[in-house]
């Protein structure tokens, strides 16, 4: 008798769970069916009501405007390959970092490999490695290569960190 009651309660609980899943499924689907491309660092993002909100940043690439430059991304790392015309050369506004959050965010660039300097803004003489971007604002990311190597082909790898 006791087991029968337990079985009855368990079956009903399972039925209620099925019902809850059935009710929640359209909203779960609606919340995950669409995404924005170029969203980096998904570990730090949170999904709410169909939107990837609280994204740490959105990176928009402009490498197509620079000849012989390619951008590769993997797991929050950015790798730029390029061929210089002069031994010392700057590329302004290669990428744009956007802050999609409601609050200002502070970002910093962490170099991983390569001699090329990656910095926020467009000022080559004052290269900022940290910047605060207002809500819905954006900042250009530029690179500056001063290594006077014979080979003009270079690459640089870096990460964008959220403070």
């Amino acid at each position, binding site marked *: 008798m006791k087991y029968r009651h337990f079985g*009855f309660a368990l*079956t*009903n609980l399972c*039925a*209620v769970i*099925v*019902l809850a899943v*059935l*009710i929640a*499924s*359209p*909203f779960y*689907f*609606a*919340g*995950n*069916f*669409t*995404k*924005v*491309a*170029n969203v980096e660092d998904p570990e730090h993002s949170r999904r*709410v*009501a*169909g*939107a990837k*909100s*609280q994204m740490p940043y*959105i990176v*928009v690439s402009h490498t197509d405007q620079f000849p012989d430059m390619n951008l590769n991304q993997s797991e929050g790392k950015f790798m730029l390959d390029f061929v210089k015309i002069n031994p010392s050369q700057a590329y302004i506004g290669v990428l744009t970092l*956007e802050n*999609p959050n*409601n609050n200002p965010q502070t970002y910093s660039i962490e170099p991983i490999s390569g001699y090329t300097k990656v910095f926020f803004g467009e000022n080559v003489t004052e290269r900022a490695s940290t910047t605060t971007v207002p809500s819905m604002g954006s900042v250009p990311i530029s690179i500056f290569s001063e290594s006077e190597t014979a080979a003009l082909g270079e690459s640089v790898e870096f990460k964008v960190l959220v403070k």
Partner: protein
Amino acid sequence: MVTRSITRLIDEAILPAATLIVGKMAGLFAVIYFLHLDATVVPASFLKILPTVHFADQNSYILAENYSNLAMFSLASAGTIFVIARAHFLHTSHISPQLQAKLARLNLEVLIASSYRLYHQAAIWLTFLWLSTAFLVLSTIFNITYPQISIVAFIVAANFSWVFALDIEKEVEIQRSQG
């Protein structure tokens, strides 16, 4: 053995759940097609089976989300209107004899429903309607859905609930007068 009411609710929840998913998808593909948005379908990227739609920029994403959420809410509203209208006019407890005779003549008696069926249906559709509203409100808080859509959704859901409450009130009165 599962309680009859829960079985009935599960049974009634299948159609609205499927309708909302279809509404979201149809709304999304319609907005991509008609507004020529830049989007790509990535297969098997959601739950390792279902595809997802990736938008090239935030503006296209917000536009598509707004219209598709609106389509989903419209379908939830349409289903709720149908059930409420049925509860008001085609309810076995208070259907007018003239209407019943007319339906019998047209062989449409299948449209007449009992309180048991109607109330389970209405509970499910209203749950979906309010959850859609909550979904829109959350989306608005996170700057995705336009606030106007959420406000209209809330007004629609509140009004439909009120109209349905009137029917319950009527039913209680009938039961009281009979008992």
